[in-house]
């Protein structure tokens, strides 16, 4: 088992006829992911072709899900229409909506989150790299890649990775892979202040997943999501956890690229979060080059084999 998605998961892509969505749909197909449908309103009936693959396009998520059995959507819709695209997934009763789109207004996300509360559809993102459950083939192919992460840097294994940032996730995954340590699932929760799935949600899943033996949690300045997850880890998680917080040198009040990466008060600085990590028994990576090694240290201390 992995978390949220497996190599058998059937995926639809909203915005498959756009440049961005199309490019990453092709990369997912190449990786071996079961991309079974595309959705672009007004282009229903057309076919998205890539090598041997012929992916049918539908006018709505509901139609696409009914015809193909897709249970997860990858959303590549431009910001003004992205909130609507997410709500359409919820209305169609999908298991998971993965919103890659960057730049969705906060007000839209506040309303979307309220509308989805208590429903069956989980939202990942927005402004996230997506999710990868690596496969067992060459360069981890045959896995489920939803979003924009490079598939080939992964390796099937037992470490769960959760992060707010894309390239920093790839950095951690790559460090693990070159050390021969594979991953169960790698999840990007996104860099926006209002997102669907939190660090804590993912940490709970990794904690309960029998395949996952260790966890890397990567956070940023801004908000209290990492602190919340760390306290839960201290109380409930029996697996070794390594943590890194980006933004130790960020000045207060300036947005560092991600809309959510902004220091508001004393509690959401990198220093405050790192102190909480230490307090909660999380092995802190001193630099971003140290993320995999920090987990190796934590696993050795706990007597856990990661490979």
């Amino acid at each position: 088992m992995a978390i949220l998605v497996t190599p058998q998961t059937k995926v639809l892509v909203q915005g498959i006829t756009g440049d961005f969505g199309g490019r990453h749909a092709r990369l997912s197909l190449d990786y071996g992911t079961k991309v079974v449908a595309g959705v672009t309103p007004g282009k229903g009936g057309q076919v998205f072709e890539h090598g041997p693959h012929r992916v049918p396009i539908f006018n709505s998520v509901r139609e696409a899900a009914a015809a193909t059995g897709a249970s997860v959507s990858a959303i590549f819709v431009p910001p003004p229409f992205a909130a609507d695209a997410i709500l359409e997934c919820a209305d169609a009763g999908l298991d998971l909506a993965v919103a890659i789109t960057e730049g969705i207004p906060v007000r839209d996300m506040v309303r979307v989150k309220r509308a989805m509360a208590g429903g069956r559809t989980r939202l990942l993102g927005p402004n996230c790299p997506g999710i990868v459950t690596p496969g067992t083939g060459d360069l981890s192919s045959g896995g489920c890649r939803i979003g924009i992460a490079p598939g080939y840097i992964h390796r099937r294994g037992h470490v769960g990775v959760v992060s707010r940032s894309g390239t920093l996730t790839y950095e951690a995954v790559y460090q693990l892979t070159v050390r021969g340590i594979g991953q169960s699932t790698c999840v990007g929760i996104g860099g926006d202040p209002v997102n669907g799935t939190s660090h804590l949600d993912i940490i709970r899943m990794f904690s309960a997943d029998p395949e996952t033996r260790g966890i890397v949690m990567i956070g940023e300045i801004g908000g209290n999501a990492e602190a919340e997850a760390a306290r839960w880890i201290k109380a409930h998680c029996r697996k070794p956890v390594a943590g890194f917080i980006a933004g130790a040198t960020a000045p207060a009040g300036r947005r560092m690229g991600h809309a959510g990466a902004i220091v508001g008060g004393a509690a959401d600085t990198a220093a405050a979060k790192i102190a909480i990590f230490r307090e909660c028994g999380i092995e802190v990576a001193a630099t971003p080059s140290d993320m995999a090694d920090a987990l190796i240290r934590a696993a050795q201390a706990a007597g856990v084999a990661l490979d």
Partner: protein
Amino acid sequence: MNIHEYQAKALFEKFGVAAPKGAAAKSPGEFAGALAGLPEGPVMVKSQIHAGGRGKGTFTDGTKGGVKFCKTRAEAVEAASRMLGNTLVTAQTGPAGRKVQTVYFTAASDIRKEYYLAVLLDRAESRPVIVASTEGGVEIEKVARETPAKIFKVLVDPAYGLADFQVRELLFGLGLSGAEAKNAARLVRGLFAMYLETDASMVEVNPLITTPTGEVLALDAKVTFDDNALFRHPEIVALRDLNEEDPKEIEASKHSLSYIALDGSIACLVNGAGLAMSTMDIIKHFGGNPANFLDVGGGASKEQVVAAFKIIVGDPNVRGIFVNIFGGIMDCNVIATGIVEAVREVGLRLPLVVRLEGNNVVAGKATLAASGLTIVSGDSMADAAQKIVRLVA
């Protein structure tokens, strides 16, 4: 995006948020006209810059106070003449200060009591929150730390909106009743409507005041907007004041680069916000100081890399450059080609350390090596960071 107080007050008026009558002037010729529109009595003269702490600020010519109470019109004109074109240094501007290009005259109000009121996002709850306090005119962070019982909050349900009972809860908390409560309720509702309809990130009134005649007025206004929502608010974009922004940051935004100037000597060029932040961190970790945050994004083009180099070398503090690229999907060789082109185009003479990893990295490194340029290669982030720190030391 930030706006000036006088612009915020104009929005207040549109949304029925009561404030003292005021008028702005951008040149001495406009002073008389601006003052003529105000009611009889004393006047406040306020420097308009995008930074707080104006009242306690000092001008670079030694004059104190970016906000002045003036008993007569003549005094007001004199104060405004001194402020306009002068550079104001406050706790929030940094030592360089900001040049005052607009002054704002308002009718001075009799203050019975000062309060605090703001609308912003509660991140943990993913809902708007209205924050009010009986302690106005002071730093709200200090109140929160020292006397948290004096702060009242209501979370607004995005599905239902701001409920009447919630407005009452705030007003009772502030101890308002009668005409004051009625006026304050109208003001709270107006402020919340403005927060929603303009896609603001924060609307802050500090102080909010009551007057001896029962009026409730927003004496100051600080408003910031959600950059992601500006596409649907051309009327807000029109309020942008480029004089208040770093020219390098303006240039960067033209090329869809996310750039923030800092005061160190090692410039960074990175793909991805998280990696860019942690590149700054690792420079600091090894004893250097980052000159900037620069995220070229996930799909950077050659043109963007060239533009980024130009911005970086335009900063006189920069003594070395650290390029850190994790090319997941993007081809490292394309980036390497862009770097070589940029170095040639800007005639770079500063030390340059490049760390490339990911897709087609072997070809990328070969391109750098074959260029004949003095580019130092780093094997990992840590290795590259140590190299650039040594090179600028």
